[in-house]
């Protein structure tokens, strides 16, 4: 455009839109600028779930409660699967609460690109905001469900006196953070891989269901023996769930070696997730 003024190439530019073939150009500042959007999405998720319902957020509590009763009937009463020294209700409540956080977050973040294609196709914002917002809104729901567990737990600790927690309970936020990160990372990896090839989506939806059976949600790890145990332990969630239970119930298996495995697993998948998400977000709209 010769008739327009020539610019000086040494100028500083605020935004550079390139083919985006480099793997490592993250914009932390930009993410910070959009923090309000993150909170807005979280608010939207929470508000819209119970609009036009009578019980509102109470529905969040019904879900783990009913699931636990179901587990109690089927796995405990009928199938006679022991939950060790932990009262079955408490065991199932914690298990389903943690598991539903993980599976729901994974399910929704793994559809980030496909579900939001219409918004992403019209306006730019750092795409990672969306899965992040799902992680946070999931946490709000988790906290409500967790407080239900907490009430039961208080009863069993102080009234029933069947279980005795220990100081490892203070590490709970660490285990929780790792579970949060794992669901987030798996989700963004899957959504990045499925923009072009949808096949994986089918695998994921029932794969997650199956994965529950190799996570100590119904069966405590102490009840699993032999080679099957290794199978459980290779699941990075297993040690985290067990550590959770160890703190609250004084029961469970706390193995530093396997916790380290889970931590390494989390960090590696975080790195992979962020890199491929960052790569895919630039051009997925052409193929979605």
């Amino acid at each position, binding site marked *: *455009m010769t*008739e*327009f*003024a*020539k*610019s000086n190439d040494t*100028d*500083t*530019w*605020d*935004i*550079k*839109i*390139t*083919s*985006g073939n480099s793997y490592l150009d993250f914009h932390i500042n930009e993410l910070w*600028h*959009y923090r*309000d*959007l993150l*909170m*807005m*999405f979280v*608010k*939207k998720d929470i*508000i*819209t779930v119970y*609009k*036009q319902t009578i019980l509102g957020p109470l529905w969040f509590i019904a879900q783990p409660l009913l699931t636990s009763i179901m587990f109690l009937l089927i796995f405990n009463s009928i199938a006679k699967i022991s939950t060790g020294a932990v009262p079955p209700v408490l065991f199932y409540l914690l298990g389903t609460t943690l598991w539903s956080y993980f599976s729901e977050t994974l399910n929704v973040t793994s559809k980030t690109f496909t579900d939001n294609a*219409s*918004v*992403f*196709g*019209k*306006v*730019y*914002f750092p795409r990672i905001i969306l899965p992040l917002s799902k992680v946070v809104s999931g946490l709000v729901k988790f906290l409500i469900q967790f407080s239900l567990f907490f009430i039961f737990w208080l009863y069993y600790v102080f009234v029933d006196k069947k279980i005795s927690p220990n100081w490892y309970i203070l590490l709970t936020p660490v285990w929780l953070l790792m579970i949060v990160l794992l669901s987030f990372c798996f989700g963004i990896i899957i959504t990045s891989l499925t923009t*072009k*090839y949808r096949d994986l989506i089918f695998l994921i939806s029932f794969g997650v269901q199956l994965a529950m059976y190799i996570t100590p949600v119904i069966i405590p790890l102490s009840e699993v023996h032999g080679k099957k145990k290794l199978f459980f332990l290779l699941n990075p969630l297993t040690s985290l769930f067990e550590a959770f239970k160890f703190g609250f119930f004084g029961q469970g298996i706390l193995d530093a070696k396997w916790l380290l495995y889970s931590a390494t697993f989390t960090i590696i998948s975080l790195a992979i997730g962020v890199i491929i998400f960052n790569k895919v977000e*630039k*051009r997925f*709209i*052409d*193929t979605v």
Partner: protein
Amino acid sequence: MMSTEVVVKAENISKLYRLGQVGTGTISHDLKRWWALTRGKEDPYLKIGSTNDRTKKAQSDYAWALKDINFEINKGDTIGIIGKNGAGKSTLLKLLSRVTSPTSGEIKIKGRIAALLEVGTGFHPELTGRENIYLNGAILGMTKKEIGRKFDEIVDFAGVEMYIDTPVKRYSSGMYVRLAFGVAAHLEPEILIVDEVLAVGDAEFQKKCLGKMSDVASHGRTIIFVSHNMQAVQSLCKKAIYLKAGEIADVGATDKVINNYLSREVKNCISVQWDDEATAPGNEFIRLVSARIEPKLENETDPITIATEIDITFEFFLHHECNLNLSFFLNTPAGLCIFNVTTASVLLKKGYHAATLTIPGRFLNDDIYTTRILFVKDTSVILFHMDDILTFEVVDEARTGNWYGKWEGVVRPTLPFKIS
């Protein structure tokens, strides 16, 4: 005038799209590409892309939606991007708004940029007007504080105070669009990218949108406007970029670029004939046989100018004897009616008939016109009507004098007007 600081600079940007279905075959393409790239060779699919000409069948599975685009936009410029459908306008828009990224090349931008490719992106029907203002504002890149500052203005602009705490699903469509546009209009980016689809809707709303945009432009902010509507581009933009088949065909002052565009792109449809009665437009009462525009030109290849007299003829077959009259509308492509004329109602026998209308020279302005024809029985029953059968363009004649701006008005009659 502002300083000539460059705020947008596009360097050799190209965008390759894969044609047809994505699915089978892409894995093998991806693997081949990956194999070539790891050996340090060129991407095998980047070479074979054809230029983006939709009328021809593509020679390969890939096509360049944009190829080697270079331009600079200065601070305070209002730039129109024009071109036919498929010329790459939308792709360029998507690149500038960062919805997707180029296959090669680089765009550099200085300042805050906001793109309005759609109003109400991310509006949630269950949320109230208030909640949606905050959500939509945040999606468009505003912080909560900024939205809070603009909140009253937005509500005022949209005229929805009463319903601000009602879910937007209960809004009328007019309120919904006004609210959505209200949020968008109160963005304060240094560079604003606007798609013409925004300007759909009623004429009133269109005017409001364009008014808001020229308002923004007058505050020294940069606007990039993508449109088919030459009128809008002309009134809003000082400069224009004309895209053709993914490449820049012309760039410069709006009038010059638009003239170039019109002379190269507008295909007049001045004659249609239906040989097969079964497929001809019509019904059991009436069938069209032909429709044509016959300008009285010295040479057949001359363009129709504002001075040209034009005959418009419709031939039709009438199946039943009846009292018939024809009603003819001349419209602009935007749907504005220039005039409506009717014939007298006459008793016609079953058979072939023709009707001719003459539009005198020095009556129409330079514009593109389309036709609408109605066949009316007993001056009250519409037997058949058809829109947009014929399209023709009237161009300006060579002007004398120093002024070359767009001649205002939907018509341009020569009326007695004298200085005494």
